[in-house]
Protein backbone atom coordinates (compact mmCIF):
# COMPACT_ATOMS: atom_id res chain seq x y z
CA UNK A 1 0.00 0.00 0.00
CA UNK A 2 1.63 3.14 -1.19
CA UNK A 3 1.21 6.11 1.05
CA UNK A 4 -0.74 8.87 -0.62
CA UNK A 5 -0.23 11.85 1.54
CA UNK A 6 -2.40 14.40 -0.13
CA UNK A 7 -4.88 14.34 2.67
CA UNK A 8 -6.98 11.32 1.77
CA UNK A 9 -6.48 9.71 5.17
CA UNK A 10 -7.56 12.86 6.94
CA UNK A 11 -10.76 13.05 4.92
CA UNK A 12 -11.57 9.42 5.66
CA UNK A 13 -11.01 10.03 9.34
CA UNK A 14 -13.35 12.98 9.27
CA UNK A 15 -15.99 10.85 7.61
CA UNK A 16 -15.82 8.39 10.50
CA UNK A 17 -16.23 11.18 13.01
CA UNK A 18 -19.25 12.53 11.18
CA UNK A 19 -20.84 9.10 11.08
CA UNK A 20 -20.42 8.78 14.81
CA UNK A 21 -21.84 12.23 15.36
CA UNK A 22 -25.15 11.11 13.92
CA UNK A 23 -25.64 8.29 16.39
CA UNK A 24 -27.72 8.59 19.51
CA UNK A 25 -25.63 9.72 22.48
CA UNK A 26 -25.06 7.10 25.12
CA UNK A 27 -25.24 9.23 28.22
CA UNK A 28 -27.79 8.58 30.92
CA UNK A 29 -29.26 11.61 32.59
CA UNK A 30 -28.66 10.74 36.22
CA UNK A 31 -30.56 11.25 38.59
CA UNK A 32 -33.65 11.41 36.42
CA UNK A 33 -32.90 8.12 34.67
CA UNK A 34 -31.25 5.31 36.54
CA UNK A 35 -30.03 2.07 35.07
CA UNK A 36 -30.70 -1.31 36.65
CA UNK A 37 -27.58 -2.56 38.36
CA UNK A 38 -26.42 -6.12 38.03
CA UNK A 39 -28.23 -8.73 40.04
CA UNK A 40 -25.03 -9.85 41.70
CA UNK A 41 -23.70 -6.41 42.44
CA UNK A 42 -21.49 -5.87 45.48
CA UNK A 43 -23.01 -2.69 46.76
CA UNK A 44 -22.14 -0.36 49.50
CA UNK A 45 -23.43 -1.89 52.69
CA UNK A 46 -23.84 -5.16 54.49
CA UNK A 47 -27.27 -6.57 55.26
CA UNK A 48 -27.49 -8.92 58.24
CA UNK A 49 -30.22 -11.42 58.93
CA UNK A 50 -30.16 -11.64 62.71
CA UNK A 51 -32.44 -14.64 63.19
CA UNK A 52 -30.29 -17.08 61.29
CA UNK A 53 -26.97 -15.91 62.74
CA UNK A 54 -25.17 -18.30 65.09
CA UNK A 55 -22.43 -15.84 66.11
CA UNK A 56 -19.54 -17.94 64.82
CA UNK A 57 -17.44 -14.85 63.80
CA UNK A 58 -16.33 -16.45 60.52
CA UNK A 59 -17.13 -13.20 58.73
CA UNK A 60 -14.82 -11.20 60.98
CA UNK A 61 -12.04 -13.72 60.50
CA UNK A 62 -12.39 -13.79 56.73
CA UNK A 63 -12.21 -10.05 56.26
CA UNK A 64 -8.82 -8.95 54.83
CA UNK A 65 -8.96 -5.43 56.25
CA UNK A 66 -10.60 -6.19 59.61
CA UNK A 67 -13.62 -3.96 59.23
CA UNK A 68 -16.05 -6.19 61.18
CA UNK A 69 -15.60 -6.28 64.93
CA UNK A 70 -17.62 -8.97 66.67
CA UNK A 71 -17.97 -9.45 70.40
CA UNK A 72 -19.89 -12.55 71.37
CA UNK A 73 -20.81 -14.19 74.66
CA UNK A 74 -22.74 -17.18 75.83
CA UNK A 75 -26.23 -16.66 77.19
CA UNK A 76 -28.20 -18.82 79.62
CA UNK A 77 -28.79 -21.73 77.21
CA UNK A 78 -25.05 -21.93 76.47
CA UNK A 79 -25.68 -20.63 72.94
CA UNK A 80 -23.58 -17.95 71.42
CA UNK A 81 -25.12 -14.56 70.85
CA UNK A 82 -23.83 -11.37 69.40
CA UNK A 83 -23.20 -8.48 71.79
CA UNK A 84 -21.52 -6.01 69.49
CA UNK A 85 -21.05 -6.04 65.78
CA UNK A 86 -19.40 -2.94 64.45
CA UNK A 87 -19.06 -2.57 60.71
CA UNK A 88 -16.98 0.26 59.30
CA UNK A 89 -18.32 1.01 55.86
CA UNK A 90 -15.46 3.41 55.20
CA UNK A 91 -12.79 0.73 55.57
CA UNK A 92 -14.66 -2.05 53.81
CA UNK A 93 -13.44 -2.85 50.32
CA UNK A 94 -16.58 -4.76 49.26
CA UNK A 95 -14.74 -7.91 48.30
CA UNK A 96 -17.50 -10.25 49.47
CA UNK A 97 -15.25 -12.69 51.35
CA UNK A 98 -17.45 -12.39 54.43
CA UNK A 99 -20.58 -13.29 52.47
CA UNK A 100 -18.79 -16.32 51.10
CA UNK A 101 -17.51 -17.40 54.51
CA UNK A 102 -20.80 -17.37 56.38
CA UNK A 103 -22.01 -20.98 56.93
CA UNK A 104 -25.63 -19.98 57.58
CA UNK A 105 -25.88 -17.63 54.61
CA UNK A 106 -27.18 -14.83 56.76
CA UNK A 107 -24.98 -12.00 55.51
CA UNK A 108 -25.57 -10.22 52.21
CA UNK A 109 -24.31 -7.20 50.35
CA UNK A 110 -26.81 -4.64 49.18
CA UNK A 111 -27.76 -3.22 45.78
CA UNK A 112 -27.69 0.33 47.09
CA UNK A 113 -24.92 2.59 45.87
CA UNK A 114 -25.99 6.01 47.09
CA UNK A 115 -24.46 5.82 50.50
CA UNK A 116 -22.35 8.93 50.67
CA UNK A 117 -22.26 10.71 54.00
CA UNK A 118 -20.87 14.00 55.14
CA UNK A 119 -18.58 12.84 57.89
CA UNK A 120 -16.52 9.75 58.49
CA UNK A 121 -18.23 8.96 61.76
CA UNK A 122 -21.55 8.42 60.00
CA UNK A 123 -20.03 5.53 58.13
CA UNK A 124 -19.22 3.51 61.20
CA UNK A 125 -22.33 1.41 61.63
CA UNK A 126 -23.55 -0.69 64.51
CA UNK A 127 -25.58 -3.82 64.36
CA UNK A 128 -28.89 -1.97 64.36
CA UNK A 129 -28.00 -0.10 61.17
CA UNK A 130 -27.32 -3.19 59.17
CA UNK A 131 -30.28 -5.31 60.26
CA UNK A 132 -32.34 -6.77 57.48
CA UNK A 133 -35.73 -5.10 57.18
CA UNK A 134 -38.22 -4.77 54.32
CA UNK A 135 -36.47 -1.60 53.18
CA UNK A 136 -33.01 -3.07 52.88
CA UNK A 137 -32.17 -4.33 49.45
CA UNK A 138 -30.03 -7.44 49.54
CA UNK A 139 -28.20 -8.31 46.36
CA UNK A 140 -27.81 -11.64 44.73
CA UNK A 141 -24.08 -12.10 45.33
CA UNK A 142 -23.72 -15.70 46.54
CA UNK A 143 -27.46 -16.01 47.21
CA UNK A 144 -29.55 -17.32 44.34
CA UNK A 145 -32.89 -16.71 46.04
CA UNK A 146 -32.28 -13.00 46.19
CA UNK A 147 -30.84 -12.97 42.70
CA UNK A 148 -34.03 -14.34 41.23
CA UNK A 149 -36.11 -11.52 42.69
CA UNK A 150 -34.13 -8.63 41.22
CA UNK A 151 -34.78 -7.09 37.80
CA UNK A 152 -32.49 -7.82 34.87
CA UNK A 153 -29.49 -5.57 34.38
CA UNK A 154 -29.58 -3.00 31.57
CA UNK A 155 -26.72 -3.64 29.17
CA UNK A 156 -25.11 -1.09 26.89
CA UNK A 157 -25.11 -3.57 24.03
CA UNK A 158 -28.89 -3.64 24.16
CA UNK A 159 -29.27 0.12 23.77
CA UNK A 160 -28.50 1.06 20.22
Amino acid sequence: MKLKNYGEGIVKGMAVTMKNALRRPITTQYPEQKLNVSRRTRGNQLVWNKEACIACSMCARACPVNCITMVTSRDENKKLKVDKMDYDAGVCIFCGLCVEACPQKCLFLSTDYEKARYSRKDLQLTKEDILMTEKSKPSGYYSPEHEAKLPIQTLLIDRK
Partner: protein
Amino acid sequence: MTLRTETFILNAGPQHPSTHGVFRMRFTLDGEVIQDVEPVFGYLHRGIEKLAEGLTYSQDIVFTDRLDYLASMTNNQAYVLAVEKLAGIQVPERAEYLRVIMAELMRISSHLMAVGFLLNDIGAFLTPLLYMYREREKILDLYDMVCGQRLTYNYMRIGGVSQDIPEEFVPALKRFIDSLPRFIKEYEQLLETNEIVLIRTKNVGTLSKESAINYSAAGPVLRASGIKWDIRKADPYSVYSRFKFEIPTGIKGDVYDRYRVRIEEMHQSIAIIKQAMEQIPQGEIQTKVSRVLKPAKGEAYGRIEGPKGELGFYLVSDGGTNPYRLHVRPPSLINLTALRELLIGVKIADAMAIFGSIDICVGEVDR
Protein backbone atom coordinates in the same frame (compact mmCIF):
# COMPACT_ATOMS: atom_id res chain seq x y z
CA MET B 1 31.31 35.35 18.07
CA THR B 2 30.39 31.92 19.38
CA LEU B 3 26.99 31.31 20.83
CA ARG B 4 26.87 30.07 24.38
CA THR B 5 23.97 27.75 25.14
CA GLU B 6 22.90 26.10 28.35
CA THR B 7 20.74 23.17 29.17
CA PHE B 8 17.88 23.52 31.59
CA ILE B 9 15.96 21.07 33.72
CA LEU B 10 12.25 20.63 33.21
CA ASN B 11 10.20 18.71 35.67
CA ALA B 12 7.26 16.77 34.26
CA GLY B 13 5.99 16.39 37.76
CA PRO B 14 3.85 13.82 39.42
CA GLN B 15 0.73 15.73 38.45
CA HIS B 16 0.69 15.95 34.68
CA PRO B 17 -2.09 15.29 32.23
CA SER B 18 -0.04 12.89 30.17
CA THR B 19 1.85 10.62 32.50
CA HIS B 20 -0.50 7.76 33.26
CA GLY B 21 -0.77 8.20 36.95
CA VAL B 22 1.70 9.64 39.43
CA PHE B 23 5.00 9.30 37.63
CA ARG B 24 7.65 11.94 37.57
CA MET B 25 10.31 12.57 34.95
CA ARG B 26 13.05 15.16 35.17
CA PHE B 27 14.21 16.12 31.72
CA THR B 28 17.44 17.89 30.90
CA LEU B 29 16.62 19.86 27.79
CA ASP B 30 18.68 21.68 25.22
CA GLY B 31 16.10 23.78 23.42
CA GLU B 32 13.52 21.17 22.56
CA VAL B 33 15.81 18.14 22.44
CA ILE B 34 16.11 15.87 25.46
CA GLN B 35 19.64 15.23 26.66
CA ASP B 36 18.91 13.17 29.75
CA VAL B 37 15.94 11.89 31.66
CA GLU B 38 15.66 10.73 35.24
CA PRO B 39 12.45 8.92 36.15
CA VAL B 40 11.32 9.15 39.73
CA PHE B 41 8.56 6.85 40.97
CA GLY B 42 7.34 5.44 44.20
CA TYR B 43 4.49 7.85 44.78
CA LEU B 44 1.96 5.02 44.90
CA HIS B 45 3.85 2.54 47.05
CA ARG B 46 1.43 0.75 49.34
CA GLY B 47 3.55 -2.11 50.64
CA ILE B 48 1.50 -4.91 49.10
CA GLU B 49 4.28 -7.44 49.28
CA LYS B 50 4.70 -6.92 53.00
CA LEU B 51 0.99 -6.78 53.73
CA ALA B 52 0.51 -10.08 51.95
CA GLU B 53 2.61 -11.84 54.54
CA GLY B 54 -0.01 -11.07 57.19
CA LEU B 55 -2.95 -12.73 55.44
CA THR B 56 -3.79 -16.22 54.31
CA TYR B 57 -3.43 -17.42 50.75
CA SER B 58 -7.08 -16.98 49.86
CA GLN B 59 -7.27 -13.51 51.35
CA ASP B 60 -4.29 -12.37 49.27
CA ILE B 61 -6.33 -12.56 46.07
CA VAL B 62 -7.94 -9.29 47.09
CA PHE B 63 -4.58 -7.53 47.04
CA THR B 64 -3.58 -8.84 43.66
CA ASP B 65 -6.61 -7.08 42.17
CA ARG B 66 -5.12 -3.77 43.08
CA LEU B 67 -1.73 -4.21 41.48
CA ASP B 68 -2.58 -3.45 37.89
CA TYR B 69 -6.02 -2.13 38.47
CA LEU B 70 -6.85 -1.96 34.80
CA ALA B 71 -6.38 -5.68 34.23
CA SER B 72 -7.47 -7.35 37.43
CA MET B 73 -8.52 -10.71 36.06
CA THR B 74 -5.12 -11.59 34.72
CA ASN B 75 -3.51 -10.62 38.01
CA ASN B 76 -5.83 -12.99 39.82
CA GLN B 77 -5.04 -15.73 37.36
CA ALA B 78 -1.28 -15.40 37.79
CA TYR B 79 -1.44 -15.55 41.58
CA VAL B 80 -3.81 -18.49 41.65
CA LEU B 81 -1.59 -20.33 39.19
CA ALA B 82 1.40 -19.84 41.49
CA VAL B 83 -0.47 -21.12 44.53
CA GLU B 84 -1.74 -24.15 42.66
CA LYS B 85 1.77 -24.98 41.55
CA LEU B 86 2.97 -24.66 45.13
CA ALA B 87 0.26 -26.84 46.63
CA GLY B 88 -0.29 -29.20 43.73
CA ILE B 89 -4.00 -28.63 43.19
CA GLN B 90 -5.87 -29.66 40.04
CA VAL B 91 -8.45 -27.38 38.51
CA PRO B 92 -11.62 -28.72 36.83
CA GLU B 93 -12.09 -28.19 33.08
CA ARG B 94 -15.03 -25.85 33.17
CA ALA B 95 -13.16 -23.54 35.52
CA GLU B 96 -10.17 -23.44 33.16
CA TYR B 97 -12.35 -22.48 30.22
CA LEU B 98 -14.07 -19.77 32.25
CA ARG B 99 -10.70 -18.41 33.30
CA VAL B 100 -9.57 -18.25 29.68
CA ILE B 101 -12.71 -16.40 28.58
CA MET B 102 -12.37 -13.84 31.36
CA ALA B 103 -8.66 -13.34 30.74
CA GLU B 104 -9.08 -12.77 27.02
CA LEU B 105 -11.89 -10.28 27.58
CA MET B 106 -9.58 -8.50 29.98
CA ARG B 107 -6.86 -8.37 27.36
CA ILE B 108 -9.23 -6.74 24.88
CA SER B 109 -10.29 -4.17 27.45
CA SER B 110 -6.72 -3.31 28.46
CA HIS B 111 -5.57 -2.91 24.87
CA LEU B 112 -8.55 -0.68 24.11
CA MET B 113 -7.52 1.59 26.95
CA ALA B 114 -3.87 1.58 25.88
CA VAL B 115 -4.58 2.54 22.30
CA GLY B 116 -7.14 5.15 23.26
CA PHE B 117 -4.81 6.87 25.70
CA LEU B 118 -1.92 6.79 23.27
CA LEU B 119 -4.01 8.73 20.79
CA ASN B 120 -5.09 11.11 23.50
CA ASP B 121 -1.48 11.86 24.30
CA ILE B 122 -0.69 12.57 20.67
CA GLY B 123 -3.40 15.16 20.73
CA ALA B 124 -6.66 13.90 19.30
CA PHE B 125 -8.88 15.68 21.74
CA LEU B 126 -10.58 12.77 23.55
CA THR B 127 -12.58 11.58 20.54
CA PRO B 128 -10.89 8.20 19.88
CA LEU B 129 -10.66 7.64 23.61
CA LEU B 130 -14.40 7.97 24.04
CA TYR B 131 -15.07 5.59 21.18
CA MET B 132 -12.86 3.03 22.92
CA TYR B 133 -14.56 3.63 26.21
CA ARG B 134 -17.91 2.85 24.66
CA GLU B 135 -16.72 -0.61 23.72
CA ARG B 136 -14.97 -1.12 27.03
CA GLU B 137 -18.22 -0.25 28.79
CA LYS B 138 -19.84 -3.27 27.18
CA ILE B 139 -17.09 -5.51 28.55
CA LEU B 140 -17.51 -4.05 32.01
CA ASP B 141 -21.24 -4.77 31.83
CA LEU B 142 -20.43 -8.43 31.16
CA TYR B 143 -18.11 -8.57 34.15
CA ASP B 144 -20.71 -6.89 36.29
CA MET B 145 -23.15 -9.63 35.37
CA VAL B 146 -20.82 -12.39 36.51
CA CYS B 147 -19.08 -11.20 39.61
CA GLY B 148 -20.77 -7.98 40.62
CA GLN B 149 -17.96 -5.47 40.25
CA ARG B 150 -16.50 -3.42 37.43
CA LEU B 151 -12.91 -2.80 38.42
CA THR B 152 -11.60 -5.11 41.15
CA TYR B 153 -13.16 -8.45 40.51
CA ASN B 154 -11.90 -10.96 43.09
CA TYR B 155 -13.29 -13.66 40.83
CA MET B 156 -10.76 -16.47 40.78
CA ARG B 157 -10.23 -18.72 43.72
CA ILE B 158 -7.60 -21.31 44.55
CA GLY B 159 -8.77 -24.36 42.66
CA GLY B 160 -11.25 -22.73 40.31
CA VAL B 161 -13.47 -19.70 40.02
CA SER B 162 -15.91 -18.41 42.57
CA GLN B 163 -19.25 -18.36 40.76
CA ASP B 164 -20.78 -19.85 37.66
CA ILE B 165 -21.98 -17.68 34.80
CA PRO B 166 -25.70 -16.82 34.68
CA GLU B 167 -27.79 -17.74 31.66
CA GLU B 168 -27.95 -14.33 30.13
CA PHE B 169 -24.15 -14.16 29.92
CA VAL B 170 -23.69 -16.36 26.86
CA PRO B 171 -26.11 -14.54 24.51
CA ALA B 172 -24.77 -11.15 25.60
CA LEU B 173 -21.18 -12.29 25.05
CA LYS B 174 -22.08 -13.62 21.62
CA ARG B 175 -23.66 -10.33 20.62
CA PHE B 176 -20.65 -8.39 21.82
CA ILE B 177 -18.11 -10.62 20.06
CA ASP B 178 -20.04 -10.40 16.82
CA SER B 179 -20.16 -6.62 16.90
CA LEU B 180 -16.56 -6.00 17.90
CA PRO B 181 -14.65 -6.67 14.61
CA ARG B 182 -16.78 -4.12 12.78
CA PHE B 183 -15.94 -1.53 15.40
CA ILE B 184 -12.21 -2.28 15.25
CA LYS B 185 -12.32 -1.89 11.48
CA GLU B 186 -14.03 1.48 11.80
CA TYR B 187 -11.40 2.51 14.31
CA GLU B 188 -8.64 1.50 11.98
CA GLN B 189 -10.17 3.58 9.25
CA LEU B 190 -10.07 6.57 11.55
CA LEU B 191 -6.35 6.20 12.10
CA GLU B 192 -4.73 3.79 9.69
CA THR B 193 -4.11 6.13 6.80
CA ASN B 194 -4.36 9.37 8.75
CA GLU B 195 -1.23 11.21 7.72
CA ILE B 196 -0.81 13.05 10.97
CA VAL B 197 -0.87 9.87 13.06
CA LEU B 198 1.61 8.22 10.71
CA ILE B 199 3.96 11.16 10.82
CA ARG B 200 3.85 11.32 14.61
CA THR B 201 4.36 7.60 15.21
CA LYS B 202 6.54 6.16 12.48
CA ASN B 203 10.28 5.95 13.15
CA VAL B 204 9.76 7.38 16.61
CA GLY B 205 11.11 5.54 19.61
CA THR B 206 12.67 2.58 17.84
CA LEU B 207 13.77 -0.28 20.06
CA SER B 208 16.07 -2.71 18.31
CA LYS B 209 15.94 -6.48 18.80
CA GLU B 210 19.11 -6.74 20.85
CA SER B 211 18.11 -3.89 23.12
CA ALA B 212 14.69 -5.38 23.72
CA ILE B 213 16.18 -8.70 24.79
CA ASN B 214 18.87 -7.05 26.90
CA TYR B 215 16.35 -4.98 28.80
CA SER B 216 14.14 -8.09 29.32
CA ALA B 217 11.16 -6.34 27.85
CA ALA B 218 8.06 -8.48 27.44
CA GLY B 219 4.61 -8.28 25.98
CA PRO B 220 3.70 -6.07 23.04
CA VAL B 221 6.93 -4.05 23.47
CA LEU B 222 8.99 -7.16 22.74
CA ARG B 223 6.78 -8.45 19.97
CA ALA B 224 6.78 -5.15 18.15
CA SER B 225 10.56 -5.34 17.84
CA GLY B 226 10.24 -8.49 15.82
CA ILE B 227 10.69 -11.30 18.33
CA LYS B 228 8.04 -13.98 18.39
CA TRP B 229 7.75 -14.80 22.10
CA ASP B 230 4.44 -15.38 23.83
CA ILE B 231 4.14 -17.39 27.03
CA ARG B 232 0.84 -18.81 25.89
CA LYS B 233 2.75 -20.67 23.20
CA ALA B 234 6.22 -21.00 24.68
CA ASP B 235 5.26 -22.27 28.15
CA PRO B 236 1.54 -23.04 27.95
CA TYR B 237 -0.51 -22.81 31.11
CA SER B 238 -4.19 -23.54 31.66
CA VAL B 239 -5.82 -24.87 28.46
CA TYR B 240 -4.16 -22.55 25.94
CA SER B 241 -2.58 -25.45 24.08
CA ARG B 242 -6.02 -26.42 22.76
CA PHE B 243 -6.69 -23.18 20.88
CA LYS B 244 -5.47 -22.10 17.48
CA PHE B 245 -4.20 -18.54 17.38
CA GLU B 246 -1.26 -16.60 16.00
CA ILE B 247 1.22 -14.22 17.48
CA PRO B 248 1.40 -10.86 15.71
CA THR B 249 4.83 -9.26 15.49
CA GLY B 250 6.09 -5.94 14.27
CA ILE B 251 9.01 -5.09 12.05
CA LYS B 252 10.89 -2.13 13.42
CA GLY B 253 9.84 -1.56 16.97
CA ASP B 254 8.64 2.01 16.77
CA VAL B 255 5.48 3.47 18.26
CA TYR B 256 3.44 2.60 15.20
CA ASP B 257 4.39 -1.08 15.44
CA ARG B 258 3.39 -1.29 19.08
CA TYR B 259 0.04 0.22 18.23
CA ARG B 260 -0.46 -2.25 15.37
CA VAL B 261 0.52 -5.23 17.52
CA ARG B 262 -2.07 -4.32 20.11
CA ILE B 263 -4.84 -4.03 17.53
CA GLU B 264 -3.91 -7.38 15.99
CA GLU B 265 -3.85 -9.02 19.42
CA MET B 266 -7.42 -7.91 19.92
CA HIS B 267 -8.41 -9.86 16.82
CA GLN B 268 -6.60 -12.94 18.11
CA SER B 269 -8.37 -12.66 21.45
CA ILE B 270 -11.72 -12.60 19.69
CA ALA B 271 -10.77 -15.84 17.92
CA ILE B 272 -9.78 -17.49 21.21
CA ILE B 273 -13.04 -16.50 22.90
CA LYS B 274 -15.06 -17.93 20.03
CA GLN B 275 -13.25 -21.26 20.26
CA ALA B 276 -13.57 -21.36 24.04
CA MET B 277 -17.28 -20.71 23.86
CA GLU B 278 -17.74 -23.69 21.61
CA GLN B 279 -15.58 -26.08 23.59
CA ILE B 280 -16.71 -25.29 27.11
CA PRO B 281 -17.93 -28.40 28.99
CA GLN B 282 -20.33 -28.69 31.88
CA GLY B 283 -19.01 -29.54 35.30
CA GLU B 284 -18.10 -28.13 38.63
CA ILE B 285 -16.25 -24.90 39.02
CA GLN B 286 -14.02 -25.30 42.05
CA THR B 287 -12.19 -28.20 43.61
CA LYS B 288 -12.64 -28.71 47.29
CA VAL B 289 -9.90 -26.88 49.09
CA SER B 290 -9.78 -26.28 52.81
CA ARG B 291 -10.54 -22.77 53.93
CA VAL B 292 -7.09 -22.17 55.34
CA LEU B 293 -4.61 -23.74 53.00
CA LYS B 294 -1.34 -25.05 54.34
CA PRO B 295 0.88 -26.03 51.46
CA ALA B 296 4.09 -27.94 51.92
CA LYS B 297 7.39 -26.18 52.29
CA GLY B 298 8.85 -24.97 49.02
CA GLU B 299 8.73 -22.28 46.45
CA ALA B 300 6.98 -21.74 43.12
CA TYR B 301 6.96 -19.21 40.33
CA GLY B 302 3.82 -18.88 38.25
CA ARG B 303 3.76 -16.68 35.19
CA ILE B 304 1.20 -15.70 32.58
CA GLU B 305 1.03 -13.52 29.54
CA GLY B 306 -0.71 -10.42 30.78
CA PRO B 307 -1.79 -7.58 28.54
CA LYS B 308 1.27 -5.54 29.47
CA GLY B 309 3.82 -8.32 29.47
CA GLU B 310 4.93 -11.27 31.52
CA LEU B 311 3.37 -11.11 34.96
CA GLY B 312 4.88 -13.49 37.48
CA PHE B 313 4.37 -14.31 41.14
CA TYR B 314 7.10 -15.89 43.24
CA LEU B 315 5.87 -17.58 46.41
CA VAL B 316 7.89 -19.09 49.24
CA SER B 317 6.02 -21.10 51.83
CA ASP B 318 7.23 -22.38 55.17
CA GLY B 319 4.30 -24.67 55.91
CA GLY B 320 2.10 -22.12 57.66
CA THR B 321 -1.15 -20.47 56.70
CA ASN B 322 0.47 -17.26 55.46
CA PRO B 323 3.05 -17.07 52.69
CA TYR B 324 6.57 -16.47 53.90
CA ARG B 325 7.40 -14.24 50.93
CA LEU B 326 5.40 -12.99 48.00
CA HIS B 327 7.18 -11.20 45.20
CA VAL B 328 5.66 -9.77 42.05
CA ARG B 329 7.47 -9.46 38.74
CA PRO B 330 5.85 -6.27 37.41
CA PRO B 331 5.92 -6.05 33.59
CA SER B 332 5.47 -2.27 33.58
CA LEU B 333 8.56 -1.58 35.67
CA ILE B 334 10.79 -3.90 33.70
CA ASN B 335 9.60 -2.48 30.39
CA LEU B 336 10.39 0.97 31.74
CA THR B 337 14.11 0.22 32.05
CA ALA B 338 14.31 0.92 28.33
CA LEU B 339 12.93 4.42 28.80
CA ARG B 340 16.22 6.25 29.11
CA GLU B 341 17.63 4.84 25.93
CA LEU B 342 14.46 5.54 24.02
CA LEU B 343 14.09 9.13 25.12
CA ILE B 344 17.55 10.56 24.59
CA GLY B 345 17.72 12.69 21.48
CA VAL B 346 14.01 13.13 20.79
CA LYS B 347 11.84 16.17 21.26
CA ILE B 348 9.40 16.67 24.10
CA ALA B 349 6.35 16.05 21.97
CA ASP B 350 7.69 12.64 21.01
CA ALA B 351 8.58 11.82 24.59
CA MET B 352 4.95 11.69 25.60
CA ALA B 353 4.06 9.51 22.64
CA ILE B 354 6.84 7.02 23.45
CA PHE B 355 5.93 6.94 27.08
CA GLY B 356 2.32 6.26 26.22
CA SER B 357 3.20 3.46 23.88
CA ILE B 358 5.06 1.46 26.55
CA ASP B 359 1.73 1.36 28.37
CA ILE B 360 2.40 1.33 32.08
CA CYS B 361 0.11 1.28 35.04
CA VAL B 362 1.59 2.95 38.09
CA GLY B 363 -0.06 0.56 40.53
CA GLU B 364 2.19 -2.13 39.17
CA VAL B 365 5.35 -0.06 39.02
CA ASP B 366 5.15 0.94 42.66
CA ARG B 367 3.13 -1.93 44.12
